[in-house]
């Protein structure tokens, strides 16, 4: 019998420790870790293997292999031009999608996403249909001295088509993160809409827009499917690596592919630096 003043708790024993669930949790943790590691390995192994196998040879052949050098230069220049055109043309669209509510906004948004879901060779065929020499637009451009297909212009067009939606999406998100009231306050302080955008929204969005541009540039550099349809020659780096693979086999394609991977690390590093700055 319990002493007076002492609570009797026998009738409600404490719940048994849930050992089974702790073991299950541990197994689940290990399983998730293993699956995640395998996934990480799946991503890293081919890239690392490629760089290890062909990186040294690729870098050393840069001085001797003028075709590789020219293709890298062509890739960088066309990707930069495509990105600049995308930034100029798509920034207003991204801003409008982020700020304005209007009829047809969902349709515009879907249109901007369309190139993301089209297989890229199909995108190339579509561009060829519109901009090829046999089309009214392509014919008119050709007559005016501007050849689109099988020219650097075609490369820029293909890069722009497939990579601009990434810029629009990222830029739109960037604008949406900047509270519209900053702009409105600037407007009450005397700025018109454009001046408020230039003095307030643009500086507040600058880092995000640059990051969006870097993403677009990186995507443009890595494009193959649309470019190969529209402009096989002159060859950008991705087309060159494909060409070397089909013409000479894996060993000749390796150095080009490895250099292209190293080339792609540039925007990746820039992006990390920008995001690090944001954080």
């Amino acid at each position, binding site marked *: 019998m319990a002493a007076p003043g002492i609570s009797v708790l026998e009738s409600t024993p404490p719940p048994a420790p849930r050992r089974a669930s702790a073991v299950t949790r541990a197994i689940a943790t290990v399983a998730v870790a293993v699956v995640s590691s395998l996934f990480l390995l799946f991503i890293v192994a081919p890239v690392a293997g490629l760089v290890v196998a062909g990186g040294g040879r690729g870098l050393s052949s840069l001085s001797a292999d003028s075709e590789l050098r020219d293709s890298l230069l062509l890739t960088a220049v066309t990707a930069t031009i495509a990105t600049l055109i995308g930034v100029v043309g798509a920034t207003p669209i991204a801003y409008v999608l982020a700020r304005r509510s209007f009829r047809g906004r969902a349709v515009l948004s879907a249109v901007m996403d369309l190139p993301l879901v089209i297989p890229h060779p199909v995108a190339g065929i579509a561009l060829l249909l519109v901009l090829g020499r046999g089309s009214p637009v392509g014919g008119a451009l050709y007559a005016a001295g501007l050849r689109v297909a099988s020219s650097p212009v075609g490369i820029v067009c293909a890069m722009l088509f497939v990579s601009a939606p990434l810029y629009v999406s990222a830029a739109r998100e960037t604008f949406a993160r900047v509270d519209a009231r900053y702009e409105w306050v*600037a407007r*009450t*302080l005397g700025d018109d809409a454009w001046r408020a955008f230039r003095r307030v929204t643009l500086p507040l969005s600058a880092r995000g827009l640059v990051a969006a541009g870097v993403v677009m540039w990186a995507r443009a550099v890595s494009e193959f499917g649309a470019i190969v349809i529209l402009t096989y020659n002159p060859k950008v780096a991705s087309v060159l690596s494909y060409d070397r693979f089909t013409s000479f086999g894996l060993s000749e394609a390796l150095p080009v592919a490895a250099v292209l991977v190293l080339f792609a690390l540039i925007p990746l590093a820039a992006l990390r630096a920008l995001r690090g700055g944001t954080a």
Partner: protein
Amino acid sequence: MISLKGVNARAGAFSLTDITFDVPRGAYGVVIGPAGAGKTTLLETISGVVRATSGRIELGGDDLTHAPPEARRIGIVYQHAYLFPHLTVGQNVAYGAADGAMASDVSARFGVDVLGDRAVESLSGGERQLVAIARALARRPEVLLLDEPFSALDPRTRNVARRVLRTIYFERRFTVLQVTHDFAEAGLLGDVAIVLDRGRVVQRGDPEEVFRKPASPYIADFLGAENVFAGVARPIRAEGPDWVAGDAQELIQHAVAFTTGALAFYALGDVVPGPTHAVIRAEEVSLSAEPSMSSLQNQFRGTIQEIVPAGALARVTVDASGTPIVAAVTARSVRELKLQVGGEVVVGFKATAVHLC
């Protein structure tokens, strides 16, 4: 001058409906209302941030209903300041300033001149609000819109900021419309009070008038009136047109007997005879040990239910014939009358202190 006539506006799912009021040139208007009443949306509609779908907005006598914000000669200060984070404090104040001297002057007056080179991120909430007020004033607006600008300030800084703003206001005589949910602040600052609820103006007028004579029991409750009673009004001396029992459309002004539960008391004023509400500010209710021979027409003996001290004052709730009546008395009165819960006391108020609505 701010003049809104039948203004309707929509911001997301929220609507302002048929907003009509005037704040004369150089007057200080206050917008009062509970959270979600549409106070900020109202300021944004006046400033052109939210577009008016119909009605007319006049500022300084000009129809600016469809004018962009930059053409309205206004300044707006949000509760959250919205200082430009990529600029320093000094650059923020100078952003839209009429001239450099003006920016320096208001910065010095609000004590933010010493923060000139500081980054906005390093400021406290109160400092941000002061900088935002200085920034808006540096532009020399004709109309200043303030959205709870003192809410992040500590009591001492709040008083200083209010005083500085009042000084500049009296010097320049611009028109102000300030949102607040603090009626003490509204009474302290305002020439015109606008009570907003669920996107509609439910009362407007002199703040003292709104405070003493709320248009509805809801407004009375929102404005902090403790004694709001539902009951029946019955005229007891016809001074206006003859009143016929049951004719609720006939509005007459005369002495009224108001009955709530087992308690009946006298009131004066305009009333539609029949079911209505009576509002008595706690400050108008007095307590005494014995019935006094003063001009108090309503005196009842009751039992003290509760005494809530609040600094120099105390809120005393007295049960009078089953109706709880709250009196605001000084702590000294509580001591001198030896008031204690369960004790008996006489509660009294004038008929003119009763507002029927």
